[in-house]
């Protein structure tokens, strides 16, 4: 980003001098006939917050966003934006910005006309429109592209036009549905940073749908994880990763070995001893009441290979798979109970010799690194 552009962004931020909307979801639900796309969901998005929604395909993310935008009428519940229920408002009266996955740029208009469209709909004067479009084009680094048609731009450029169009009327709430889904990896990472800066400059609240957990963790203040139309957990990325509430959250965000628990042997405060389905006795940590039908979650980077005797949990195993990925080595270790396959990841270093397939190895992890999570 060049100097001139940064100055432009700062000026916009200063002149905007506003704060994004507070969005409250109150028992919002949606079903299509017998299909339940969204179960009653309650959560709040703070003013100026970057709120990501992630989940597998079909988990109800777009439905959630469509309900906020107004083109999916909810079957129940209320959405309050700065305290006002917007459910009965038509989309064109809500004054939110939205970036669609395929950008939804109007192909029969030029880039400048696309960006001017929302201003035109609001009756902004010609001169004012031209000025704001010009500034917006500068902000998204497309100053010389105003007269082009969207089809003549690359995917990343189209994405930026969509962003400019959604933000040109200073909406207090920006909705984005997998805005980077169609871009290749390098461009995606570049755009992630740009969108973050863009949001900081606008001061808008953002609800950002993606199926890419890395993208969500990188960009968001908080992440909501959806599954089968239900919100599983909403928390800051670090908390989600380090303290998942359910096995689904644990496995969706990052990698985890999940061991189903057969019975709770003892619990003392946060410390708990459990027996897994495969008969292993494991010392673990629990944040709530230990329940039957829960699982032990172990992050691969917390598994110690070799001198593991110091750990509360220590087992012998056999290396079953060795995988080198840039910067780290990933092992799959079959524990002595023969059922458990544990994933371990250790940083790669020239001094470290690779363990060979079939080699016996001591594995272990600390009590606080084995989390007891409940649910299926």
């Amino acid at each position, binding site marked *: 980003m060049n100097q001139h552009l940064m100055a432009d962004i700062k000026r916009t931020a200063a002149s905007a001098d506003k704060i994004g909307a507070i969005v409250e979801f109150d028992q919002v639900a949606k079903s299509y006939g017998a299909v339940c796309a969204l179960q009653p969901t309650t959560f709040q998005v703070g003013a100026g917050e970057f709120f990501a929604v992630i989940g597998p395909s079909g988990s109800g993310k777009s439905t959630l966003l469509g309900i906020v*935008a107004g083109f999916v009428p909810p079957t129940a519940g209320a959405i309050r934006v700065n305290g006002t229920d917007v459910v009965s408002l038509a989309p064109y009266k809500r004054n939110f910005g939205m970036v669609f996955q395929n950008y939804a740029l109007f192909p029969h208009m030029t880039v400048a006309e696309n960006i001017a469209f929302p201003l035109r709909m609001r009756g902004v004067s010609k001169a004012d429109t031209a000025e704001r479009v010009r500034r917006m084009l500068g902000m998204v680094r497309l100053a010389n592209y105003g007269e082009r048609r969207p089809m003549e731009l690359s995917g990343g450029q189209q994405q930026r036009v969509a962003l400019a*169009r959604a933000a040109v009327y200073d909406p207090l709430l920006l909705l984005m549905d997998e805005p980077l889904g169609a871009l290749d990896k390098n461009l995606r990472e570049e755009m992630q940073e740009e969108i973050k800066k863009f949001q900081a400059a606008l001061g808008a609240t953002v609800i950002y749908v993606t199926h890419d957990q890395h993208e969500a963790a990188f960009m968001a203040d908080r992440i909501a994880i959806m599954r089968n139309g239900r919100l599983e957990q909403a928390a800051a990325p670090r908390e989600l990763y380090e303290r998942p509430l359910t096995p689904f959250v644990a496995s969706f965000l990052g990698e985890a070995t999940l061991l189903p628990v057969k019975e709770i042997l003892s619990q003392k405060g946060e410390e708990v001893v459990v027996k897994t389905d495969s008969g292993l006795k494991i010392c673990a940590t629990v944040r709530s009441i230990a329940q039957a039908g829960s699982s032990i979650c172990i992050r691969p980077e917390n598994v110690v290979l070799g001198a593991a005797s110091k750990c509360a949990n220590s087992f012998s195993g056999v290396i079953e798979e060795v995988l080198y990925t840039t910067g780290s080595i990933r092992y799959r270790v079959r524990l002595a109970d023969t059922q458990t396959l544990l994933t371990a990841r250790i940083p790669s270093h020239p001094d470290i010799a690779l363990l060979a397939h079939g080699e016996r190895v001591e594995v272990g992890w600390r009590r606080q690194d084995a989390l007891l999570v409940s649910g299926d």
Partner: protein
Amino acid sequence: MTQVVNEAGFVPGAARAWRKPWRPGRGNGFLLIAPLTLLCALFVVPLALVVVRSFSGPQPGLAQYIEIVSNPSTAWVVLYTFWTALLVTAATLLLSYPVAFTISRAKGRLLTVCLAMVLIPFWTSTVIRTYGWIVILQRRGILNDILVGSGLIDQPLRLMNDGSGMQIAMIHIMLPFMILPLLSAMRGIDANLMRAASVLGANPLRQFVHVYLPMSLPGVSAGCVLVFISSLGFYITPALLGGQRTMIAVLIEQQASRLLNWPLASALATILLVLTSALFIIYERLMARLGGGKPVGEVQ
């Protein structure tokens, strides 16, 4: 390789694909030899003969054309043909747009039924449909029976004589030619565009005016050109339903096979050909200038 397809069935990146129509490869030109030969022998050469004959009648020169223009009855037929084509095109467009819009939104059985209702008449012979209209519109036909019987009018309408019956039948016959191009343009409009317009602040009327209508224009112009040009050369319906009002094609037939005035018939045919081609070229130029639309030959 997996492709992400969203709810609308939209493949990201595929958007740019529709711009590039298929073109035959350079090396495959020989495949065109047979059809080109056929076209030359059976179409281009006879047509050239017609054009030549129009100038070489009993007295070589422009005599036939002067005759057509200076004789009020033939000049009038040419003008009336244009007026009818214009009227039929406008009426077909007005009737077809809402129908095509509804069909483009329909799903499942409704879609099948609607399409059948458009296509079955389309596949039915024009002669049969014209006779159908005769049954309805003639002096003692169904329409007049109802109107007179119910006391709405005293005298039966003379729809078979003043050309209006012919125009009604032509509008009916031309409907599929308008609906189908409209439908193909409308089904190509991404539903997300309307949602985007809505979120950006456009009420339903403005969504239609600023997004839907412009995006359906390629279909509108393709349909209009198709209907207008077909109407100019329409023969069966004017011949059977036109009464005293004659269109160019009927006049050509009269001159050629009844009065055996081949030079005059050739001149009339040439006029029709030149005007039709001119219209088509103007249309193509216009579409190329607008850039957004697809020429009529490339409607999906």
